[in-house]
């Protein structure tokens, strides 16, 4: 008699959906995924020390696969993204679809739905959330939020006074995928030239060729500077990318070369960005690496920034912002934004994050910086925990009722011993 393990498996294509279903509803798969998630969480936590928070999140938790050394041996492991997708499929098919539906299992079913909500919330956060900042001096207002880490190339037609009405951007999503040895030729119909980007480095410093450090830097020299690639900072916000740019006029004019560096943007909300400027015909143009930015559907004006220091030292004791929110068709709304008391409006949350400029002394005018988050799933962890908790409560009640019913039945069947 053939044992089950020796039975031949039918791998014909018409059976693939069945194999797929069996694979994804397997309890073994859930166990393997949960063990791997523990390993990835451990490596990711340790990896933060070496790579910093953002880079570790990207490498371990926002990836399909990654390589890491375990006891000196390079190992390929599945990333958090694929593990969570597989776990989501496994739980949906195994604990919701495949499981036998009966009243006794209602609590567990609800709990699993709660856990699926948590996983789905994680996916929505990963795919659709944005985070950035808005920095304002008292009296300044803005509806624009800037990214902490993402930089884009902007080409600007400028007036003599340095005013631009519009920009042509090469988006951050494309720019940050460039390798240092890669060249991209970018075309815009409405501009009289093509733009060539090369030598992109996610963190770089321009070094004057007359400076000692330039001796060790290979690569192009432009206008007395070389671009020195740096090791990416553990704090990804501190990275300042750089690249080389070539402007190729389509009328056959001589190409114009430039070096761009993100440090030409601004470190202070009152600073004006400093683009590389060039002329094509009579039109002045600028090219600059700027932070990716987006708008919120209302304007925030900083009325007052209250900043208190501990007596005798420079450390901040308390800081908070008094703002007015302006929105079309709505009355002006004065508000306070403090630590742990954010402003939530239209899907955006403004947290009191920091202040500047760095090194400011008592009496100096200071700016207030808000962290601006937009996460459609920011409340989902709370909802999922409630659903999971309700499910476990229901399961407990069902088990309790079952137990008491069975106990009563047993007592009823047992004759009195006395």
């Amino acid at each position, binding site marked *: 008699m053939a044992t089950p393990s020796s039975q031949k498996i039918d791998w014909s294509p018409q059976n693939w959906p069945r194999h797929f279903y069996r*694979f994804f509803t397997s309890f073994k798969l859930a166990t*393997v995924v949960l063990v791997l998630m523990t390993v990835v969480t451990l490596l990711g936590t340790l990896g933060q020390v070496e790579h910093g928070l953002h880079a570790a999140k990207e490498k371990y938790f926002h990836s399909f696969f990654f390589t890491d050394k375990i006891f000196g041996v390079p190992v390929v492991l599945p990333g958090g993204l694929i593990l969570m997708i597989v776990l989501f499929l496994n739980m949906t098919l195994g604990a919701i679809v495949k499981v036998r539906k009966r009243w006794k299992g209602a609590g567990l079913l609800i709990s699993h739905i709660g856990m699926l909500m948590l996983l789905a919330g994680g996916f929505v956060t990963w795919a659709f959330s944005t985070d950035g900042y808005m920095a304002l001096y008292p009296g300044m207002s803005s509806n624009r939020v800037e990214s902490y880490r993402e930089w884009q190339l902007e080409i600007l037609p400028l007036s003599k006074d340095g005013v631009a009405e519009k920009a042509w951007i090469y988006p951050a999503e494309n720019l940050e995928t460039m390798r240092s040895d890669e060249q991209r030729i970018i075309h815009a119909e409405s501009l009289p030239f093509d733009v060539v980007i090369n030598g992109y480095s996610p963190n770089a410093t321009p070094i004057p060729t007359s400076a000692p450090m330039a001796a060790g830097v290979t690569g192009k020299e432009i206008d007395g500077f070389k671009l020195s690639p740096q090791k990416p900072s553990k704090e990804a916000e501190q990275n300042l990318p750089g690249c080389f740019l070539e402007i190729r006029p389509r009328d056959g004019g001589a190409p114009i070369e430039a070096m761009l560096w993100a440090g030409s943007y601004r470190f202070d909300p009152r600073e004006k960005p400093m683009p590389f400027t060039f002329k094509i015909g009579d039109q002045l143009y600028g090219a600059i690496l700027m932070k990716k930015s987006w708008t919120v559907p209302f304007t925030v004006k900083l009325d007052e920034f209250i900043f208190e220091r501990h007596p005798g030292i420079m450390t901040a004791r308390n800081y908070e912002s008094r703002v007015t929110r302006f929105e079309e068709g709505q009355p002006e709304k004065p508000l306070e934004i403090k630590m742990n008391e954010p402003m939530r409006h239209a899907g955006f949350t403004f947290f009191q994050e920091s202040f500047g400029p760095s090194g400011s002394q008592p009496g100096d005018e200071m700016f207030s910086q808000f962290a601006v988050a937009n996460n459609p799933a920011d409340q989902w962890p709370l909802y999922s925990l409630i659903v999971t908790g309700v499910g476990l409560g229901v399961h407990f009640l069902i088990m309790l009722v079952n137990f008491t019913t069975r106990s009563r039945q047993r007592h009823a069947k047992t004759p009195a011993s006395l």
Partner: protein
Amino acid sequence: MTRPPAPFVTFPLVALILASCGGEDTPGLVERSLSESEKSFRIVETSMDRFRYSSQPSAESAEASGGASEGLVYDTPEGWTEKPGSTMRDINFTFGPKGEGECYVARLPGAGGGLAANVNRWRGQMAAAPLTEEEVAALPTRPLFGQPARFVSVDGSFSPGMGSDQSFPDYRLMGLIVSVEAGAVFVKMTGPKALVEQNSAAFDQFINSLTVNTN
């Protein structure tokens, strides 16, 4: 017959292949309007300004007869004028009737590119041919902060760089370089050849007075 691979192997493999797919995305430039707060830019003339290599007032508080900059103590030679330091210069002097002579000290963490590369960078600024590693190793030494520093002296046409196309004929560059893994120190004096010759004793006086402030 070979047993087909188990689904535990095949599905992750398929996922791996799918994840590695995807072509190069090379879209063009995207046009957008700028909001009021984004419209204004500062037009600067040079890359020096654009890359923020402007002077810093670090040496403004230096005393008249002697100076101190970021932990350094030194004598200012007679006739030399101390100028503000900068991002790249810890101590900065000019001398000569029109201030055409210059002497500065720069310190860097790490080897700063190495001895030979820096000697030849200086020689390149004077339009002189580069030296071999052996020739660099054979350069004379002088003490600087108690370390043997290589002494460089080159005559030629001086091109300071830093975005300038200017060249100054009949100049002399005199300098000392200490370059070790722990750090690098550069003392460099440039100017018209005759003026540098006149100030060579002042240069020696300055480097001999250079010490680290341990207070």
